[in-house]
């Protein structure tokens, strides 16, 4: 048996300890961590369980209302009924009547331990007689105020100890003492029948002159006729004998609370017990101490239950601290949502950074916090995990969420939902481990887009390079044609210089070839201007369109042997245009019609005036131009695929030039082509182009 601090194990300490635990629970409830709350709820339920089951009557009173808050089973048993919460004490006062110990005076409600505790008094071992349903109980009460974190009264806790048997015993002893004649027999009878372990020790050596069966059973050995030193030869006597000596010498009683003692039980196993001991000196008629009455109450269960609470509390607090640290420091965002409504209990720092700062999480539901995610796979996946227990993992799930800037945007998340169960195995909530991978996904998308863009750019560059190569090829070929003609003409001239007609013919050819070369260079420069988005310089004057076209076709007919057929309703179609430009447009379109059309068929040129617009249509029969080529045909340096594969002449600036010239006049040029209808280029010019070219 070890020496211990007796005051530390008193019922008062138990009360204080319970009060402290209450206060701890309350402060933890108020703490912000939801996992704390979780643990605290566990604590509270533990505490309530222990309070409810502890075989000591306990009740609680609300200090403000004076109404009952709680009473445990032992209390119910004592009262003979269950007092529901909120019942007023005064109504119970009719059933319970308290009398002052000794005087037998009826106590007022104000004198009750709960009232005294409400007033802030310290109530310890307050003894009185309690008459409950015509039965008297001697009780010792301890009451205290349990305060909240901030010092506000919360509840009054009252612990009741039924000491009827001890009091009766003491009374019996007194009666016995006073009677002095009743003798041992009666006392012994009482002793032996009592179920409370008790002994009577005689003389300064503390001889066991009476030890009842419960006592001997409790200590596991025979004691009658022996001294304390003889019975407790294992060292326990060293603790108890000095106390007994003092009681014997001074005549003052000793009460020990929750003293530890190791005893061998029926199965020869060493057991730890906690006992309350009352040592009462009893005296002879001369006032000299004759012996000591010792009463032992086994309080092991209560103490063990309390220690269990303390230990489990400590363990839980340590576990909770570990969990808190783990959750707080986790590189993943961790959120715990409770119940099917997904109320947030945990949202660590990373979680709060997950989408956007400034949202309140704890105690709010998922759909309250993320209204933008209602009816999305994000919430459905969590609900599914909660309902089925299936772990769900999402990779780069795209969600439209409110960003840190407060705007809705697509963000990407990796996350895993895991269901957790409560201690009864019922679904408790869903743990979600998440990563915001928006930057990663965006970077990848950007890289992919860049790569695609790069590929397209490379392709375009390749295509452009191809076009340029082909253009240079066509340019050199086409420029060589008038140069070849010039060289040949010059060589021919010397061979027949004496024939004036021949010289004239050759001169015309030389001039024509030089004009062609010059025209090519001009076309090339103008096409470049058009490509650069510049307007072509025009000299707009009053012009007769019919005359211009007629002249142009006449010039071409010299070379192409009367291949054109011009038709017009009117030979006088006057408007404002640049004559030179109109000639170039007609030359280009008409030459193309000859070049690409069927050589046996005439090229028809129609001129038509409609309101304030002049329409010129140039039609040839022959191979059609495909639709895709029609769309591309006016772009610079493009020639139709048939023209390219056919190894045909021209570098593809003609139609670009036509379009540029027509548009400079505020007009338009279109093409339609089919195998049955042949190919028609239609030019529309406003009657007066001056306002389009200022």
């Amino acid at each position: 048996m070890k020496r211990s601090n007796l005051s530390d194990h008193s019922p008062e300490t138990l009360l204080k300890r319970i009060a402290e635990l209450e206060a701890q629970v309350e402060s933890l409830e108020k703490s912000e961590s939801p996992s704390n709350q979780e643990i605290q709820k566990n604590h509270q339920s533990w505490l309530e369980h222990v309070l409810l089951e502890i075989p000591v009557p306990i009740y609680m009173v609300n200090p403000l209302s004076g109404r009952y808050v709680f009473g445990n089973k032992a209390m119910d048993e004592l009262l003979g009924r269950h007092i529901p919460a909120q019942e007023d004490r005064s109504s119970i006062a009719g059933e319970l009547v308290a009398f002052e110990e000794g005087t037998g005076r009826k106590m007022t409600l104000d004198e009750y331990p709960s009232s005294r505790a409400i007033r802030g008094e310290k109530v310890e071992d307050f003894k009185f007689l309690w008459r409950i349903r015509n039965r008297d109980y001697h009780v010792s009460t301890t009451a205290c105020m349990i305060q909240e974190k901030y010092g506000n009264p919360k509840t009054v806790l009252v612990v009741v100890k039924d000491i009827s048997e001890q009091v009766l015993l003491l009374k019996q002893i007194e009666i016995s003492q006073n009677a002095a004649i009743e003798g041992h027999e009666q006392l012994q009878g009482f002793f032996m029948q009592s179920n409370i372990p008790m002994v009577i020790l005689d003389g300064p050596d503390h001889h066991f002159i009476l030890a009842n069966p419960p006592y001997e059973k409790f200590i596991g050995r025979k004691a009658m006729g022996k001294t304390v030193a003889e019975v407790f030869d294992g060292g326990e006597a060293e603790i108890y004998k000095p106390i007994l000596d003092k009681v014997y010498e001074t005549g003052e009683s000793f009460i020990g609370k929750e003293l530890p003692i190791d005893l061998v039980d029926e199965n020869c196993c060493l057991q730890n017990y906690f006992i309350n001991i009352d040592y009462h000196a009893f005296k002879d008629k001369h006032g000299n101490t004759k012996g000591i009455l010792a009463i032992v109450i086994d309080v092991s269960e209560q103490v063990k239950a309390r220690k269990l609470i303390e230990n489990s509390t400590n363990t839980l607090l340590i576990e909770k601290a570990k969990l808190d640290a783990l959750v707080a420091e986790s590189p993943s965002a961790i959120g715990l949502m409770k119940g099917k409504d997904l109320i947030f209990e945990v949202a660590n720092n990373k979680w709060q950074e997950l989408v956007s700062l400034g949202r309140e999480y704890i105690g709010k539901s998922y759909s309250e916090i993320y209204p933008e995610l209602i009816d999305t796979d994000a919430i459905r996946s969590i609900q599914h995990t909660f309902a089925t227990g299936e772990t769900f993992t999402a990779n780069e799930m795209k969600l439209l969420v409110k960003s840190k800037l407060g705007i809705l945007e697509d963000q990407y998340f990796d996350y895993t939902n895991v269901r957790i169960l409560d201690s009864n195995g019922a679904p408790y909530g869903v743990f979600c481990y998440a990563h915001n991978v928006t930057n990663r996904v965006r970077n990848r998308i950007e890289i992919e887009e860049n790569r695609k863009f790069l590929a397209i750019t490379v392709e375009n560059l390749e295509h452009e390079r191809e076009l340029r190569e082909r253009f240079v090829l066509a340019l050199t070929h086409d420029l060589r044609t008038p140069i070849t003609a010039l060289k040949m003409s010059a060589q021919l001239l010397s061979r027949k210089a004496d024939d004036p007609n021949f010289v004239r013919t050759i001169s015309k050819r030389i001039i024509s070839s030089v004009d062609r070369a010059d025209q090519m260079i001009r076309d090339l420069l103008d096409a470049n201007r058009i490509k650069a988005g510049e307007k072509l310089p025009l000299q707009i004057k009053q012009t007769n369109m019919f005359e211009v076209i007629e002249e142009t076709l006449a010039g071409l007919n010299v070379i192409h042997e009367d291949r054109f057929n011009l038709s017009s309703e009117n030979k006088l179609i006057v408007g404002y245009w640049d004559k030179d430009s109109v000639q170039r447009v007609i030359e280009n379109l008409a030459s193309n019609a000859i070049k690409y059309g069927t050589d046996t068929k005439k090229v028809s040129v129609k001129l038509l005036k409609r309101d304030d617009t002049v329409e010129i249509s140039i039609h040839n029969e022959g191979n059609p131009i495909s639709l895709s080529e029609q769309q591309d045909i006016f772009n610079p340096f493009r020639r139709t695929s048939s023209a390219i594969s056919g190894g045909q002449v021209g570098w593809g600036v003609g139609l670009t030039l036509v379009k540029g010239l027509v548009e400079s006049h505020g007009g338009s040029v279109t093409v339609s082509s089919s195998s049955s209808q042949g190919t028609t280029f239609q030019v529309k010019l406003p009657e007066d182009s001056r306002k389009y070219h200022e």
Partner: protein
Amino acid sequence: MNRNKIVLVVEDDIIIRENLRDALEMEGYKVFTAANGKEGLEKLKLIPQPALVLLDMMMPVMNGREFLDVILADHMLAAIPVIIVSADIDESKKVGSKAYLKKPVDLDLLLQWVSRYAK
């Protein structure tokens, strides 16, 4: 008509075509002309078989290469010597021809080559 003096000129540019006609006629050749390959093939059906064809490559409707392929495949025409006169720098197209003269061609050189096949 002396078949050995007949030359067919297939050339889309009218001035070059006419220059060639004048130059050859001055040398005593009988000259027929065509503005493209298709016309050239049609001409071959109408005229006595020429001693030589002078052929341009880049022409509309039917180019020189296509023209050459057709006559090479025709056993009646395959034997006609063909001299290419072209600005096309792609010499891979000259297969099946007797010579490849690059524009701007020297008239004397051209006539030398012609005289080799048309006597």
